[in-house]
């Protein structure tokens, strides 16, 4: 399969955030690639329906795992824009039907963003006893000019497992506002992990990850990890609300703040609407460990390099 499926900068950024681009591009890898508003690759496999329609500034798409099908090979999605300015809007719908299973590796890349908006309105449903593992890694370039607004609404059926990992730890962030809501039915399990590094005064990060436990014995874990340095601003809100008997959840927020003008805020919110349910939380915000900083600087790193290394270690 030709590498022209995606521009060089987008492939490079996929490599930078840790994806294996050789695997991404292999002909037999299930995939869906979007370059601004052009769908450049779709590769389906048995039990996996991928359909997209290009729109003026993005696309609408269905990602469906049919009933009882377990997709054994990870599915690669890539949504990129190499323009400096503009708006990309994508509207995906993920349906993991009863008994279905899939791992999706998604890459969002805006390597030249100077005044670029990316909006996503995603809806997700998992039927009964389904598994949906979703990992999304972003790269917003080095200019700090991306404005990224992803919204997810996820409904998780009985006995299903939903895991989401979001990371943006390379390059600058720009403006990022994530809104994720997950509704969990009986005996389902939810794990959410978000990791973001705001490294300059242009970086403004706002994340809301909310889990609503709506079925008996539903379980949820929200983990938020963030760092703000050199004037960056990060606010992370982790919500877990338990409304059913014996539902249980935990919210864990950890943030590092370093440098003048940097701010980090962690807001864990726990609500319980059933006397047999239980939700716990923990939160901490602090500067990097001075001893670790001294040790790295004694080995020849500048303070900036040492802070970056410690933060990346945490993230």
């Amino acid at each position, binding site marked *: 399969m030709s590498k022209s499926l995606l521009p060089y900068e987008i492939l490079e950024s996929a490599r930078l955030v840790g994806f294996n681009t050789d695997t991404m591009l292999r002909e037999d890898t299930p995939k869906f690639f979007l370059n601004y508003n052009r769908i450049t690759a779709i590769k389906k496999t048995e039990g996996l*329906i991928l*359909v*997209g*329609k290009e729109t003026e500034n993005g696309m*609408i*798409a*269905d990602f*469906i795992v*049919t*009933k009882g099908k377990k997709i054994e090979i990870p599915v690669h999605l890539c949504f990129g824009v190499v323009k400096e300015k503009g708006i990309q809007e994508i*509207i995906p*719908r993920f*349906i*993991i*039907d*009863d008994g279905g299973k899939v791992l999706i590796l998604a890459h969002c890349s805006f390597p030249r963003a100077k005044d670029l908006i990316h909006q996503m309105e995603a*809806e*997700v*449903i*998992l*039927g*009964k006893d*389904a598994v949906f593992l979703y990992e999304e890694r972003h790269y917003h370039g080095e200019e700090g000019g991306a404005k990224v607004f992803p919204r997810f*609404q996820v*409904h998780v*059926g009985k006995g299903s497992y939903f895991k989401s990992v979001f990371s943006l730890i390379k390059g600058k962030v720009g403006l990022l506002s994530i809104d994720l*809501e997950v*509704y969990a*039915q*009986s005996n389902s399990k939810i794990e959410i992990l978000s990791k973001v590094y705001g490294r300059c005064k242009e970086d403004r990060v706002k994340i809301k990850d*909310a889990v*609503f436990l*709506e*079925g*008996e014995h539903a379980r949820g874990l929200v983990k938020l990890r963030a760092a703000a340095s050199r004037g960056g601003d990060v606010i992370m809100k982790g*919500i877990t*609300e338990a*409304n*059913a*008997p014996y539902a249980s959840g935990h919210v864990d927020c950890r943030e590092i703040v370093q440098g003048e003008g940097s701010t980090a805020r962690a807001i864990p919110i726990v*609500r319980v*609407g*059933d006397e047999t349910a239980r939700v716990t939380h923990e939160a901490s915000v602090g500067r990097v460990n001075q001893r670790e900083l001294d040790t790295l600087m004694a080995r020849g790193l500048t303070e900036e390099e040492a802070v970056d290394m410690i933060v990346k270690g945490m993230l």
Partner: protein
Amino acid sequence: MNQEEKKWLLENKYRRLILENIGKTGKTEKEIIEELEIKLMPYLSDYQPTARIKMTPSSLKNHLSLLLREGLVEKKAGKFYQKLEKM
């Protein structure tokens, strides 16, 4: 409790759906359970998914108790009615 303090109540989509469902005509718990169903149909594909999500009776009971307590619904003769036009 002022409007700002009540905002969190409607952060949960299930509570918004309950309020929409009962409307002004009023519904019993059983009717709400039967009528409220979450499903997603594909935008483009012809595939007909079987995935459906129903609210559990215990969760519905907890939501209704909360909405009653906060004055967003009222109960008359076993039926729940929406009390406010909107928040």
